[in-house]
C-alpha cells in the first residue's frame, strides 16, 4: 500500500518530465539569443539563399513554441530539436522548389552547363560547400560546426545512425575534392 502511495508522485513526476512543457518568455528569450545566429548560418549554408534562411528560421521558432520539446531535455537536445524542425521545413521547401524548377531546368539545361571551377574559387570553402548536395552540406555543417555526434545528426536529418558515419565520410571526401 505504502509502495503504491509512493509510486504515484514518482509516476506523475516521470510523466511531467516526458510531457512537452511550454517555455516561459524569459526561457525562450535566452534560448533564442543563443541559437538564432547558429541556426541562421546553418540554414543559409545548406540552402544557399539568405531570404529562404530568414523565412525558415522564423517558422522554426514558431513551430518550436507550438510544439515544445519534452521538459527533461537539456539545452543541447533542445537545440538539436530546433535544428530538426528547421531541417524538415527546409526539406519541404526544397521539394516544392524542385517541382517548380525541374521543368524549367530541363528546358534551360542546353544553355546553362554546370559552372566551371576556377582557381580563385577552389580555395573558397563557401563555394566548395555550395557545390555539394544539400544533404552533404547539412551533414558536414552539423558534424563540424555544431559538433553533433552521429546519433544527434541521425535524429536531426532523419537518417539511420549506422549510415551517418559512411555518408559523412563520403561527404568529407567530396568536399576535399572540391577544395583541392
Amino acid at each position, binding site marked *: 500500500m505504502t509502495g503504491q502511495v509512493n509510486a504515484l508522485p514518482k509516476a506523475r513526476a516521470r510523466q511531467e518530465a516526458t510531457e512537452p512543457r511550454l517555455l516561459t*518568455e524569459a526561457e*525562450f*528569450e535566452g534560448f*533564442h*539569443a543563443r541559437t*538564432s*545566429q*547558429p541556426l*541562421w*548560418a546553418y540554414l*543559409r*549554408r545548406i540552402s544557399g539563399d*539568405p531570404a529562404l*534562411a*530568414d523565412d525558415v*528560421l*522564423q517558422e522554426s*521558432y*514558431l513551430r518550436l*513554441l*507550438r510544439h515544445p520539446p519534452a521538459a527533461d531535455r537539456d539545452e543541447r537536445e533542445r537545440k538539436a530539436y530546433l535544428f530538426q524542425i528547421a531541417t524538415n521545413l527546409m526539406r519541404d521547401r526544397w521539394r516544392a522548389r524542385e517541382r517548380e524548377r525541374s521543368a524549367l531546368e530541363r528546358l534551360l539545361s542546353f544553355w546553362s552547363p554546370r559552372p566551371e571551377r576556377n582557381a580563385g574559387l577552389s580555395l573558397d*570553402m*563557401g563555394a566548395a*560547400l555550395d557545390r555539394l548536395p544539400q544533404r552533404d552540406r547539412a551533414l*558536414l*555543417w552539423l558534424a*563540424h*560546426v555544431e559538433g553533433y555526434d552521429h546519433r544527434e545528426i541521425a535524429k536531426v536529418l532523419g537518417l539511420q545512425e549506422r549510415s551517418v558515419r559512411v555518408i559523412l565520410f563520403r561527404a*568529407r571526401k567530396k*568536399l*576535399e575534392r572540391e*577544395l583541392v
Partner: protein
Amino acid sequence: MKMEQEIQEGLRQLARETRPTKPLPSAEQLWWRAEVIRRLVSREEAARQAERPLLWSQAAGLFLVVLGLLSLFISGEPRFLALLFAVVLAPLTALIAFFFLPRET
C-alpha cells in the same frame, strides 16, 4: 587527418563569417506571433467542439425520420405515421433539442 582538421577549421571560419544581412526577428516578436497563432488555433478548436452536439442531434433527428418513414412503408397504414410522430418522434426531437443544441450565452 590533417585534411579533416582543415575542413573543420574552414567550416568554422565560414560559420563565423556567415552573418545575416538584415536583423533577425527578435524573441519578443516571435513569442507574440506564436501567441497569436495559439489563440487562433484554440478559438477554432472551441468552435469545432461547439458544433459537435449540433451535428450529433442532426444525425439523431435524421435517423428518427428515416425510422418513421420505414415504419410507415412497412406497416402500410397512413394513420400509423401520425401516431408515431405524436407519441415518439415529437417528444424525442424536443428532448434532443433541449439537451444537445448549444445555448446562447
